[in-house]
Structures are given as C-alpha cells and as structure tokens.
C-alpha cells in the first residue's frame, strides 16, 4: 500500500537523522538516567520502597524522555522549513504521521532496553520472570505514546508551542498508557503474567484508536 511505503520512507529518513544527530543516546538517554537517579535519591535508600515503585518510576522516565524525543523529531523539520516542503507535496499526510511515530517509537524502544537494565540494577526490578509480557507492555505502550507525540509534535513547529504546550497536551492524554504500562510491568515483575492480559488489551485498543485517528486528522495540523 502506498501509504505504508511512504511511511516507511519517512521513518527511514527520521531514523537516519536521529542516529546522525546522536541526540538519542547523547542527550535523551542521559536525561532518563538522571531522572532515575533523582527518583532513587528522593525515594530511597530503602530497597523495598524502590522495588515497589520501580515500574512507576520507569514509565515516568520513559514518558518524560519521549517529550524530548518528539521535540527533536520535529526540530529537524523546522530547521530549514522542511515541514513546508512536506506540506507542499502530495505526500500522504497519514504517512508523515505514521512514519514519524514509528521512528520515534524505535528510538524509544532502544532507550527502554537500557533504561530497563538500569532500573533492574538500581531498583531491583525483576526482569526475567515474564519477559514476553514485559516486552509486550513496552512495545504497545511506546507505540501508543508515539501516536500521541507524533500527532501533537506537529504543533511544535510554532516556536511558542514548543516548550510548555507539548507536555501539557501529551501527558494527560497518555494517562492510559502510563497506567496500563505500569500495571503490566508490575505484574510481569511479580511473575503474574497471566493477569496482565487485560492491560495489554487496553494498550492495543489505545494504539489502534489513536494511530487511526491520528492518521485521519494529522493533515489538518499541517495546513497553513
């Protein structure tokens, strides 16, 4: 399908830019690590509390880091006005939206692998008990986050929007991702993988809804 091919081209371009800018591992990952350290310092040093809150802190770190990633993703479009180039073509708007969502999702997933490892070490979160559920939670959750972030990232073209508005929009809307992600992670870490089914199901519903709605309305944000 044309849209998917175009989305793939878009994602490929964005990933290439992400890798070359070196901001993914250069800035976003250190930021996430800093967050985790701060969380640890403010809640610790008791190991039990940290282990208990680890899933939540982990997802919070991911949430905040994603804000940076999206900002960067759209920054490349505004440096020389490339966004207008996208607008002034007949390129499918949904392809732009999906391509960017996928590219950031891939970057975030790579970061999450490292962050998971850090949290396992620093907070004593058990990663090995239900790795499939864990992977599923992060895959689906990241995808959902990317849908919202890719959509509203388009607003950050306007310099005024860049700083404050984007997090204000994304975080409340991403609540289901946060809740479901944390719960599924908790269950996976406790070895109760079977109970995580409904949470993963919620994430699937979220992803499907917002990837499709985003595809439909993204064009409206680009115009003018």
């Amino acid at each position, binding site marked *: 399908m044309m849209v998917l091919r175009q989305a793939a081209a878009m994602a490929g371009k964005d990933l290439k830019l992400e890798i070359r800018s070196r901001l993914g591992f250069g800035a976003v990952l250190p930021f996430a690590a800093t967050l985790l350290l701060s969380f640890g310092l403010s809640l610790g040093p008791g190991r039990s509390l940290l282990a208990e809150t680890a899933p939540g802190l982990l997802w919070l770190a991911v949430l905040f880091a994603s804000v940076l990633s999206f900002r960067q993703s759209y920054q490349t479009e505004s440096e020389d006005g490339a966004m207008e180039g996208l607008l002034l073509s007949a390129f499918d708007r949904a392809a732009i939206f999906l391509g960017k969502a996928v590219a950031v999702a891939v970057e975030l997933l790579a970061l999450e692998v490292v962050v998971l490892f850090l949290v396992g070490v620093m907070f004593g979160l058990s990663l090995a008990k239900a790795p499939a559920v864990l992977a599923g939670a992060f895959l689906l959750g990241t995808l959902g986050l990317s849908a919202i972030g890719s959509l509203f990232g388009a607003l950050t073209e*306007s310099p005024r929007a860049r700083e404050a*508005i984007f997090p204000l929009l994304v975080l409340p*809307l991403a*609540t289901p991702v946060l809740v479901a992600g944390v719960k599924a992670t908790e269950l996976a870490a406790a070895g109760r993988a079977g109970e995580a089914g409904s949470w993963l199901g919620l994430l699937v519903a979220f992803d499907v*809804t917002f990837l499709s709605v*985003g595809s439909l*309305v993204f064009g409206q944000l680009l115009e003018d």
Partner: protein
Amino acid sequence: MSAAERAMGKLTARPGERALGFLSLAAVAASAVMSLVVSPPDVEQGSLIRLMYVHVPSAWVAYLAFGVVFVGSIAYLKTRRTRWDRLAAASAEVGVLFTALTIVLGSIWAKPVWGTWWTWDPRLTTTAIMLLIYVGYLAVRRLPDNPARRARWAAVIGIVGFLDVPVVHLSVRWWRSLHQAPARLLGVPDIAPAMGAALGIGFLAFTVLYLYLMALRLRVGRLDERVVAEALSPRVDQPVDVLLADEAPAPGQAEEAKEVPARG
C-alpha cells in the same frame, strides 16, 4: 440554513438569551429549594448528601460540554464553517468552569465523608484529567494568530481529547479496583423519591444554566469574529469578489488573492 441552525440562532439572539437567563435563574432557584429544603437528609451522610445535587449535575454538564466540543470540532473540520469552531470554543470555556466546579465539590464532599480531600475515585480522577485536557485545548487556542489554524488545531485536540476520556476512565477504574476491595466511590446511595426529584431538577437546572452561559459566550464569539473581519477587510458587508478569468483558465493560470493575515 438548516432548522437546527435557525433554532440556534433564535436561542442565542438577544431576546432568546434573556429568556434563557430568566429560565436558568428560575431553574437554579427551584433546584436550590428542592435540594436544601424539600429533599430529606440521607441516612448515612446527613445533610452532606445535598452536595450531590450540585456535584452530580455539574459533572453531567462538564461531560456534556466536552461532548459539544467534540461535535463542534468534527463539524468544523468537515464544513470549515466558523460557527462550529465558535461553538466548540464556547463550550470548552464553559466546560472548564463546570469541570473545575465538579472537582472542587467532589473534594469538599470527600473530606467529611472519608477524611481526605482527594480520593483517587476513578470518576473524579478522570474528571481531573479531563480538566487538564480542556486546559490544553484552551492553551492551544492562544497560540496561532491565524484564526483558521487556531480552529483546526483546536478541533484536533477536541476530537482526540474526547476520544481519550473513556479510555482514561477505563484504565483508572481498573487501576483502582486492584487496590481497594470496597469501592470507595463518591456513591449515590439508595435514593428516596424526593431525592430523586431533587437530583432530576438539578440536572435540568444545570443544563439550562449551561445553555445560558453558552448563549452569552457565543455572542461574544460572534462579536470577536466581526472585529477581526473588520480589521482585515475594508468592506465588511460586501464579501470580496472572486475575479476569475472569463474563459476557462486552460490557456494559463489566473490567481486572485485577497486579504491574508500577516505571517507569524
């Protein structure tokens, strides 16, 4: 103009507005009488239950208003007629008020009943998140100078936000149910008929109040638009004409462009 639009026009014209004003005053007064005097105190919560008569209708209006934002947003994107954007914007502003009111009332109710100002009651929590989405909507409206862009951006948030609310609610409800066996909901207990009547009148009163505030806000919105239009066009009454080439533009291109707001 469709029948719906004509009705809207009537309601929001000056005499309609005034009528709505009186009606809402009467309805709120009736509701107050019902809630404070006529209905009996609750077996468990005593007179505190009277908060229900404002809290629940307020919540109803908060969600109704968001629904209107949703409808207006979709209608705007489909038709591009500014009246729908005006409707959405007005409803968002009025809705924020009622949403904030709902949360405050819920908080006031929670304190004596459960000893805390905030219970992570799923409905209240969802309402709080909805408030934040509303606030985001209004914040985005302040960003672009271009009215068409503002309307479009706002419409997208109106749509996505509204669709998100049920998902948020579901997730928070499941989240709650894991930790507390007895649901500490701000519950509506068994209702005596008089209480049911009071609640019903409360719903009515708040809905009429919502309509009145909407009428006011829509009028301001119309005035706003007229001022902007005048700022841009030397002649407001006469829509600027389109002067296309007489014959079909096949041999070349003909463009006319009229007023355009300055960029950024």
